[in-house]
Every structure is written in C-alpha cells, then in structure tokens.
C-alpha cells in the first residue's frame, strides 16, 4: 500500500528524483538525492503525507520529482519517467500535484496507469487537477481537493484553467461549493470524491455532499501558502493506508484544521509549522476520529 506523488519542486534545473520522501527532524525534505526546499506546494504535501504515514506505521510516500519553475521542463521529465516509477513502486495510490497543466501529458499518463496500475486510486490537486479536468479525465480520479475557486473551474466545461472561471458561476453572494461540486460532477469535471477546501470543507461524493467539516475555524490558514497542500498530503496518505475515501477526506480536513489551531496560526506562519504540529494532532485525535489507532 504505497503512495506515489508525481510532481515538481521549485528549483530551476533541479534533477529528476525518484525515491521515498524523507522528512528530517528539522522539517527538511529529501527525495532520492534531491533536497526539496520549504515552500508551498509539493514540499508541504509530502511533509504532511510523511507525518501521517509515520503516525500510522505505514510505508512513507514515494515521490517522482524534477525541478521546474514554470517552464514545464521538469514536468516533462517526470511524465517521461513515470513508466519506470510505476514499475519500481507498484503504487496503490498515485497523486498528481504541482505539474505544468499539459493535457497531452496527462492523457498519456492516464493511459499508462490504466495498463500498468489499473487498481491504483488516482488523486489530483494543483496543476495535476487542472490538467486532468481540462483533458476531460477528471472522472477517472478517485479524489480531487479543489478550493472554492477551483471547484468553479471544475464546474465550468468551457475553461482549461481556474484563471478563466466564468463570473456567473460565482454570482454576487459568494461561492456555493455544494452547488458547484454537483455541477462539476454532472458535467464530468469532477473526481468521484471532491474535498472542497474553504471556510467549511465540503466532502462531496458523486455530486452529493456527504460530510462537512467547519471546526475549528482558523481563518489565517487560507493566507498560509501550502495549507491546502498539507490537506491533500494527509488525504492521500490516509487513502494509501487503506482508509475509505470519505473517511480519508474527513480525517484530513479535521487534522489540518486542528493543526492550524495547535500551531496558533497567523497569516505570517508557514506550512512547515503546520506539518510540525501534525504528530501531536494525529496522536491526540486520529484514533477517535477514524478508529485507526496507532499501536
């Protein structure tokens, strides 16, 4: 039961790396021979996944990464190396995260996964989610973790990037995540399960709201880059540990919020502060939330 994260890290020309993600005691993250800098994005996602896996006593996440600062070179490198990664890792969950949203690459990757890892559950967030939706492949995914703006993008069949989301979707009274998630499902723009991040987190299964998580409310988390990524990392790690997807999403939402409370989140804190709070949060709560009790 292994999670494979397919993503990039923000170092220009950073080498391709495939290996277990290792979270150091100082919060540093290493994959293969590469050091992944602290920032929002895949470092935050992998940090949270490492913390969850360690707490549960499960194998830690593997990652297939390459340096990319937005030119797409690292993205192309990781997609090219995906066949080798699947052969080595034999993942039960594959999560696409910060990659350049290129539809052709995602189509090729999904075709490969259907041949080589047909039972793997697929997770997408960030550029991986943009590419999957834009290419019409969202229903092949088990879980996506959009924020309220991104769920508008999933619901709009005409757009290929959240920057183009139509105004009409948002109306004048703010966002309605439940309505947008249902639209996204009906229009083929959603994974089977959506974890919509927001003031209240909505877990939507096949278009219907199955759970909401609203407490504790920590508004500063929205300002902190990477706190959506930690949520995705937690959910993906719980999935790889065998949690049903709904439980994985709900426990991830609860743990992320509780970590925000425990760390005393302010808008000037970092995602690594949240990752550092996760061991305590999981130790004190996960058993009661999920029945998954670490021995």
């Amino acid at each position, binding site marked *: 039961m292994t999670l494979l994260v397919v993503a990039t890290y923000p170092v220009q020309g950073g080498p391709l790396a495939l290996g277990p993600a290792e979270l150091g005691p100082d919060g540093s993250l290493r994959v293969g021979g590469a050091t992944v800098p602290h920032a929002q994005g895949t470092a935050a996602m992998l940090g949270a996944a490492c913390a969850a896996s360690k707490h549960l006593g499960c194998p830690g996440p593997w990652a297939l990464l390459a340096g990319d600062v937005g030119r797409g070179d690292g993205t192309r490198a990781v997609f090219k190396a995906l066949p080798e990664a699947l052969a080595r890792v034999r993942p039960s969950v594959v999560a696409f995260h910060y990659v350049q949203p290129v539809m052709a690459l995602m189509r090729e990757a999904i075709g490969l996964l259907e041949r080589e890892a047909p039972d793997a559950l697929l997770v997408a967030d960030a550029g991986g989610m943009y590419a999957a939706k834009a290419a019409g492949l969202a229903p092949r995914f088990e879980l996506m973790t959009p924020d309220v703006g991104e769920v508008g993008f999933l619901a709009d069949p005409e757009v290929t990037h959240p920057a183009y989301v139509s105004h009409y979707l948002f109306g004048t009274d703010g966002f309605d995540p439940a309505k947008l998630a249902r639209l996204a499902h009906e229009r083929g723009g959603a994974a089977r399960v959506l974890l919509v991040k927001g003031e209240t987190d909505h877990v939507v299964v096949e278009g219907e709201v199955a759970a909401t998580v609203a407490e504790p409310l920590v508004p500063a988390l929205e300002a902190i880059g990477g*706190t959506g990524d930690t949520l995705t990392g937690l959910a993906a790690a719980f999935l790889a540990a065998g949690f049903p997807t709904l439980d994985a999403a709900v426990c991830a939402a609860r743990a992320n919020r509780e970590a925000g409370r425990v760390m005393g989140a302010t808008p000037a804190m970092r995602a690594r502060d949240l990752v550092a709070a996760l061991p305590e949060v999981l130790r004190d709560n996960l058993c009661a939330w999920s029945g998954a009790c670490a021995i």
Partner: protein
Amino acid sequence: MLFRSKKRTEDPGAGEASGLFLFDQVPDALWAERVLKSAGYEYALVAPPHHLRAGCDLAVAIPRVEHVGAERLLRDAGVPVRGWVDDPGSAAQPTELVTTVDFGGHLMVRAGNMKITVDKDTLVIVNTSGGGCPDIPYLNIELVGKRLDEVPRPKTLGYTLCGLMLDRAYEEACALLGVQPA
C-alpha cells in the same frame, strides 16, 4: 471582506471584431503584452479557442484591423508568435474578481484563486498561497519575506496563468497599500 470586480482598462476596441495572437508559452504572451502596451495598442489577455488549447494557455486579442501592424511590431521585437486566429469565437478573459480579507495587521488580497498577504506596517509580503502551476512555489520562495515595494512583479518572475493571477493580486495590494508597482 471586500468583493470587487476591477474594470478592465485594456479592452481591444469595444464592438470591434477581434483576432488572437497565439503563443507556445505564457511568458511569450506576457512579452507580447508588454510590447503592444508600450506601443499603445488596445489588447486583452484571453484564453485561446478550445480546439487550439494545449493546457495552460494565454493569447492576446487585438482588433483585427490592427493585425498586420501589430504582428510586424512583435516580429521586430523578437516575440515568438505561434499564429494568428481571425475568428476566436468566445475567447474567455482571465477573471478580474478581486477580494480582500483584513486580518488586522495583515492584508490578504485574492485574485481568482491566487492570494498575497502583506504586513500592513512593514509592507513585507508574509505569504502567497493558492494556485497549482510549478512557478507558484518558486514565486512563494522569491517573494515571501521581501517588501512589496522592492520585489519584481510576479508576472516578470513567473511563467504561467497562476503567476499572472498572483500579479493581479500583487497589483491590487499595491493599490490598497499606496505602493507604486515595480
């Protein structure tokens, strides 16, 4: 919380039939924008037609009547243009929805799904968040911890539409905090 939709200042001629310059990469579209803007053209950054999209695309719309001169200008400036489309149909424009959250000592500005948060006293950028393209973690590293009035514009550092939306948030933060954008 303040909801505001900015009025677009660059409208490629209200009522004029528009065409599109297409590019292989978002930075090329942003480069074309700078060239056309400096030459006084009316233009808009838009999504290319659906059948011409590859993923994270951006095109530049201008009135069709100005196509030839604008193309020459871009060629002379060295901007790599992939092509021109006469009839773009329903080309979408990046959203102009801008919202803010006042945390007391910090101001967060959202543009679409991108956010920038600034210490109101020191003008230091304390966070960027949202988005999903690979330049966003890079911009996070480059911008956080630096003063709003001292950093390069996000759109000059970034490469994608996410970077462009972060630039819109940056621009609005500058306006709200009385800072001249770089």
